[in-house]
């Protein structure tokens, strides 16, 4: 079981967290016309990188989203920061 440091609550067991998506996925402007392949890419395509990954997670017990940098091979957590901080 991994330990993730929530930027708001500190280190907690991974069972308290929910994966929300890879960082940097932007929702297409759906008021405009979007080709089916582009929408499918948005819905389903994942980079699934080996090594350093940037992801968005939710700490379910405080409901806050945050950015986590971790290594998908060694499972080492490199950094976590609030999504808001990341946007700045």
């Amino acid at each position, binding site marked *: *079981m*991994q*330990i993730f440091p929530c930027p708001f609550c500190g280190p907690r067991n991974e069972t308290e967290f*929910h994966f*929300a998506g890879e960082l940097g996925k932007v*929702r*297409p*402007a*759906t*008021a405009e016309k*979007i080709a*089916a392949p582009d*929408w499918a890419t*948005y*819905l389903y395509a994942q980079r699934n990188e080996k090594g350093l990954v940037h992801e*968005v997670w*939710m700490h*379910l017990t405080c*409901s*806050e*989203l945050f950015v986590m940098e971790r290594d998908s091979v*060694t*499972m*080492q*957590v490199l950094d976590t920061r609030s*999504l*808001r901080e990341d946007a700045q």
Partner: protein
Amino acid sequence: MTSHRTSRVALIDRLQPLRFSFDGKEYQGYKGDTLASALLANGVRVMGRSFKYHRPRGPWGAWVDDPNAIMTVTLNGRTFPNCPATTTPLVEGMQARAVNAWPSAAFDIKSGLDVFHRWLSAGFYYKTFMWPNWHLFEPMIRKMAGLGDISRDVLKGYSADQVFDHCQVLVIGGGAAGLAAARAAAEAGKGVVLVDDHPVLGGGLHQMPEIEGIAPADWIAEQASAITSAGGRILTATTAFGVYDHGLVGLAENGPFGTAPRLHRMRAERIVLATGALDRPITFTGNDRPGVMSVDGACEYLARYGVLVGRRIALVSNNSLADAAEVMLKEAGAQLIRLNPHDGPLQALGGKQTKGISQGSQHHAVDTILASGGMTPLVHLWRHAGGKLDWCEIRQALLPGTAPDGMVAVGAVNGAFDLDVSLSEARTAGAGKTPGVSPTSYGLAALWPDPGSKGRQWIDFQHDVTLKDVELAARENYVSVEHLKRYTTLGMASDQGKTSNMAGLAAMAAVQGRPLPEVGTTTFRPPFVPVPLEMYHGHHGKQLWHPLKRLALEPQHRAAEAALGEYGGWLRPGWYGRGKAKNLIHQEVLTARTSAGIFDASPLGKIEVLGPDAEAFVNFIYYNTISTLKPGHIRYGFMLTEGGSVMDDGVIARLDQNRFVISCSSSHVDSVRTHLEAWRQDGNDPDRIFIHDLTQHWATITVAGPKARDILAALALDVDLPAQEFPHMTLRETRFDDTPLRIARVSFTGDLSYELSIRRTKAPALWDAVVKAGVALEAAPIGIEALSILRAEKGYIMVGKDTDGETMPHDLGFGIPRLKKPVAFIGDRSLHSDKANASNRKALVGLAVPTGDTLLPTGAHLVEDTPPRSLGYVTSSYDSPTLGHPIALGLVENGAARIGETVSVWHLGDIRKATICAPCAFDPEGERLNA
């Protein structure tokens, strides 16, 4: 008797004899014995039959490395399958049976299978039983193979404790190195936990005459006392069975036999691995005979249990550690000859008992053959943690290489087979430093399986894999070690290849003419030893796994004799009263249709969305347009996933310009709240929208039925009730007993209906007032079962029951926002995909049965006859007391266009007829709703 008890001082208590039986015969052992040591002391050496060929087998090792002696043990009427005899402590009254053998290990009826070994090589069953169909033969083959039978009785009270624990330094292994490291760390002020899988500390030390000038027992006691004095903890009979992410170590602490081990989830800052090393077998003809044992195993039996495994012993070893063993065994009275395995091919002679050993033309009459092909460090946990292995040419073994974070290996697992070197490494590591490369006096002549040599030479004892099977696998191009493992099942038995993996890899290397380190190893995975599944499960059942949410009105429901049950995580009334459930439920439905039903709707979601951007936010979240909703008004709508499927339905009320209340389904509150939070924080300005889940803070009481308005009038609230003042889908705020009260006129039954929401603490007073007013008008409380029927009569859906993962809102008859809503909303683009536009989508319909027929089974398929295929299925089905006949809802391909069609309904082989109709079976014009 070949194997027997000696007078050597050991770790058994000779004052406490224990009686037990094996394969129906009575024996006696002592407290401190294992099943295997007690049997050996009684001269019993055939303790099992092999997995495939049913060959007689005796113990190879004395502890976790033994692949052979596996038993089903009954104690006090409770039966435990697959107990390793070498690690199972002897208990008075144990009845042990060898697995995979009948009537006994000594006389197994299926031993004849061994004659056919020529045809039973690796892959035999798969190749032979391909035609016509493997599945035809599989059950019979599985019955013939396998180990112990699982008892079908549930073991009452067999429940594992689970402990979450942490420490600064975890030392794994209680031998010389582990004890020294733990003491050094504890005396350096660290919080230390030392674990050892034996019930008695000391590892291999008990074999030694002395250590650092004193007797081993005294040295061990001194270290243990120093560790505990410095605040360290020692867990014996505790196996570290796996290392997981971020320094988590799984520990199984064994209690008395027959109880579930206690699971410790130990989080350690630093782990010192002192797990030792094992003797590896030598691959020669007949090396699986009972009486062929490991050198170290024989020494352990003598040191720990006072058992000498044979009288005339041939000691076959390629390494320098055999010298001490020879001295020890001779002192105990054994006649012993030394053989060098490099002097020629070896062959064990005999059948169920070893009668001798031959090497070339030399024959030696011995009753026991002790073999060691070198030491294999126990690097399992190192690999679990992601540590690398390096090949050591001097030691002919894979040793810990690049270390995983926070782990260090000391002692024999690190290749330090000399005691002084081992202690020095351990003390360095215990003090927090990393020991360097140590010198070694250990020497051995490389000795590996010899491909092409004659005879049946066993590689994996437990799964009956021979050298020839490895050669066959190589010929058939299963040369990767992972393929070799799966094709031959080498290393896949319950011992996980502790004795066989190195020999298997070496055999493959030799067959291919490659250096051994190039062949690589298979993946080491937890658990290190078999552990009961119960340990992972623990007490996590029922309430401890998923605590029920409780209603504020539970005492009132209990007083009214409610049948309480779990619905969507809440404990709520299914119906009220004692008697036949169906009659009571039907009476409640009729009450709600003729007078009014009073229903505790408190679990309904009450999630507030507030802030200057709240309107735009809910407009984006909902499929339906919400921005046009006026304060004091309510709208029914759907939330979709980005894939366009219906995630939840329910009403949303606008309290004022910047404040909405989302009334999502009772069982979807948590997922909806998470969904809202995710979109609020990602893609919106979180300072302009706030989400506040008040579901558990407010209670809701619904009054539904033709008399609902009269009941509300009797409460004398400050609200105008006539339909023109308070129409359907509007909301009023007032006070009850000086407390804010919200009244929403919405309906899930198709009748005039009010939802009254109030602070949780005020709910009992409101309930009592409503029930009192209701009873005067022949209204009564109703449970959720009645509500399910009432809503189905109207064709109102329950998301997740009447919808599936593909259902989109236009499948449910709500197509307008899809075509008309001008702004973006979640799932919008998906509603225009090819799939969403397909003509054969499953749509919601009603289903009517011919007059006099019984109700359709939920889940039954509607089928087309030619070609036979499913068109959809029944999602809800009830006997309607209001209408006097069964009703049903279903999802059917192209449903709207099929209304009026009669179709076949298939269920478990029975075929019936049903007519597709509109979902709403009661008051389709909605006159009662708008009353």
